[in-house]
């Protein structure tokens, strides 16, 4: 199937980009992995689940309704695994359309060709390892948000919420509202960091008010909030039973059956890396991000990035960025048609507030420094901190070389969970800035893909086996 514009990722940026592009007259396809568009913040509940809608849900429903009315071809539940075309052609050949390989919700493979591609791939969560972080019962903060808001399930009965950023308080409030107990909130940020963030947050009074309400709710329920603290260990026999938290030089032991922990969000750049776009390391944006111009263009012609995947600014800033990207794509393709206002003033305000939160959620070197030598960093491959430091001593200079030396990041998640911590450990061991150790080369598949699903029906004789090498 051929389109003018393909949008990868159906969060707020992707929904707005697809809507704007379709309304602007382009033939548009939106590809989303989840069963419904929405993204993590505006995630739709499962079909036929009806709860009390909140502000996020209402904004999500608005974006979904606009998308549905836009005429964009929306494909949910599909797994895009192959990226090709565009700049990835043979030398000397003109760039062709972007070519995406995907599996539909029904498991049937399909291919998409698009003249322009807008990447709205969002983020994944950063969890800086600590002893016991792989124990069942320990889940991400963003994971807890999805569980609570979209699925209506508590992560546990006695919950410790730990890490950094506004999600801490959102999750704690949701657990309380859902009837669970919050044993404590262990916030890596000090009180001073929050006070310093206030002026920027004032650009978004709605968010500030919501955050204040969350904090007041915790206070009313006498939930201890431990500022400037960190998880020392998660412990239990097979599943989580208690959490050791270091706060103010003292350690407290908290009985809990769930630990929701996250230290910020990392832009998902696997697609921009695969397309070999230029990237820059910006800790305040979440780490490595594609380099963009003021209209969300990457360094690769007709390839755009918007939303948190282009630098963490939050869901509120994402739709405006998606619109800007779509308008740029419409112009770059020379498509005539409507050009709705992109709302760049709102984008500016949302970005200022988002930036303050993003700084709070940036990688904290002190947490990386605290990882004990025997603690697993890459859980797919079982690579501990000490193994990373040994590799550094043996001459591993970059993240790609570290992979070769240790298998760190070679497993099914392809370094998405461990990549940042591993890079920080490697950089610290070498005594260089983290940007200097680089990032893993992007390669397909974008997600693990079942062989059965891509093989399809075939006859042996139809496999186009190339001519053999000379004997």
């Amino acid at each position: 199937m051929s389109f003018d514009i393909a949008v990868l990722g159906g969060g707020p940026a992707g929904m707005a980009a697809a809507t704007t592009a379709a309304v602007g007259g382009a033939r548009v396809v939106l590809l989303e992995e989840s069963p419904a568009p929405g993204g993590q913040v505006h995630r739709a509940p499962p079909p036929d689940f009806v709860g009390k809608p909140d502000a996020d849900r209402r904004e999500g429903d608005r974006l979904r309704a606009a998308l549905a009315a836009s005429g964009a071809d929306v494909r949910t539940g599909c797994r895009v695994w192959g990226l090709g075309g565009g700049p990835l052609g043979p030398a000397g050949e003109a760039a062709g359309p972007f070519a995406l390989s995907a599996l539909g919700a029904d498991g049937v493979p399909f291919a998409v060709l698009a003249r322009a591609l807008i990447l709205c791939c969002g983020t994944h969560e950063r969890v800086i390892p600590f002893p016991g972080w792989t124990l069942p019962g320990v889940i991400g903060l963003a994971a807890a948000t999805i569980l609570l808001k979209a699925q209506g399930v508590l992560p546990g009965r006695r919950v410790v919420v730990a890490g950094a950023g506004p999600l801490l308080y959102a999750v704690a409030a949701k657990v309380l509202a859902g009837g669970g107990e919050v044993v404590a909130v262990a916030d890596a940020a000090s009180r001073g960091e929050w006070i310093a963030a206030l002026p920027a947050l004032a650009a978004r009074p709605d968010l500030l008010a919501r955050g204040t309400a969350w904090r007041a709710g915790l206070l009313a329920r006498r939930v201890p909030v431990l500022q400037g603290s960190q998880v020392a260990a998660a412990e239990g026999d097979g599943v989580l039973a208690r959490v050791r938290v270091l706060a103010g030089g003292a350690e407290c032991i908290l009985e809990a059956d769930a630990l929701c922990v996250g230290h910020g969000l990392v832009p998902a750049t696997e697609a921009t890396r695969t397309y070999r776009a230029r990237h820059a390391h910006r800790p305040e944006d979440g780490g490595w991000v594609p380099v963009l111009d003021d209209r969300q263009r990457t360094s690769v012609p007709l390839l755009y990035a918007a939303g948190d995947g282009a630098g963490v600014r939050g869901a509120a800033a994402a739709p405006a960025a998606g619109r800007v990207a779509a308008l740029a794509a419409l112009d770059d393709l020379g498509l005539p048609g409507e050009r709705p206002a992109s709302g760049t003033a709102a984008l500016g305000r949302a970005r200022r507030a988002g930036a303050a939160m993003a700084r709070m959620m940036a990688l904290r070197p002190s947490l990386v420094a605290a990882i004990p030598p025997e603690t697993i960093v890459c859980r797919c491959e079982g690579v501990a901190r000490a193994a990373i430091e040994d590799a550094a001593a043996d001459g591993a200079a970059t993240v790609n070389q570290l992979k070769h030396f240790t298998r760190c990041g070679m497993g099914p998640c392809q370094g998405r969970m461990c990549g940042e911590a591993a890079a920080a450990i490697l950089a610290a061991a070498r005594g260089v800035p983290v940007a200097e150790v680089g990032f893993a080369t992007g390669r397909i598949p974008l997600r693990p893909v079942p062989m059965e699903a891509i093989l399809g029906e075939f006859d042996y004789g139809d496999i186009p086996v190339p001519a053999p090498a000379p004997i």
Partner: protein
Amino acid sequence: MTARFDCAVVGAGVMGCATALFLARGGMRVALLDRGGICREASGVNAGTLTMQMTRAALIPYALRAHEMWLTMPQWCAGGDVLATACPGLSVAFTDGEAAMLEERARIRRAAGAPIEMIDGRAAQAIEPGLADGVKLAGHCPIDGFTSAYLTGRAFRPALLEAGVTLLEDTPVRGVDERFTLDTAAGAIAARRLVLAGGAWLEDMAAWVGIRLPIKVLVNQLVVTERMAPVMRTVLGVASGLLSLKQYANGTVLIGGGWQGIGDRARGGVSVRPENFLGNVRLAAHTVPALREARVVRSWLGLEAETADALPAIGPIPGVEDAWIIGSVHSGYTSGPYMGRLLAQAVLGQEPDLPLFPIDRLLNERSNAA
């Protein structure tokens, strides 16, 4: 100030590393330079195959000796280990045409010294229970195996340092003057001898010393699955050589065979070709049906060099005294360490244990006229 070396080896892949190591052990002061990290190109990203059944007949005697070197690597490489594993190898034919090709190729390789016997499908399944039904004929070679190629750089590094090699990674060489002073990012490096070991980039390097040596670049694709329960225990290929399949101790299955992706010297490996990705995994799943259960987690590309006659370029560079070249060895990883040792013998003024592959045959006299 310029450092002085007895020999500068440019290119820290498996051949450059082995050459540098044995030169240093032979008493030379050696600098080993690479524009990137050690064994980060083809030597670190290939399929780690130690098979005789994809090796060119002329290289079998070399590959057999290299096989032994890989399996004993910790002993001669200061403990450096690529987890080399010995196991039987099978090359299978599903059609009559493939069976004929297999028989012919096995005969030639056998004559060159590879102990390949022909067996039927049932016997092949006894050796490899994971093998599909429908195999008409199989070449069985008891000498086969594989390494974890990504470990190659880490395996060579301590031995090189212990032998006194000056290892200069991330040090691109911009050019070489007639007295073998290398213009590098780290300053000038002077050497009495020069070894070019640049893999797919040998053509550019040969130009430094005024030689036009056409090198074709193959862009080999590889695919790996996530860990799965044991589904196979041999190295498997097909008669055409377009499949190489093995399962590692950690459960991952590596699928290769030289299907071509997109890439070039300037950009490296750029992209997998989807149709070749599909062809390769279909061939794999046809050969080991249990692979249908697997999930693919990663694909990648490695650049392999090939001369006009697809035979190695190993020997002195004609007309340039004390300059040598090594590379373009078909299935070069398999034979690599032995080739490096041979060239080191020659550079040290010894008679190599087996003949080199001088490049005079590859040079167009007119374009290389002095």
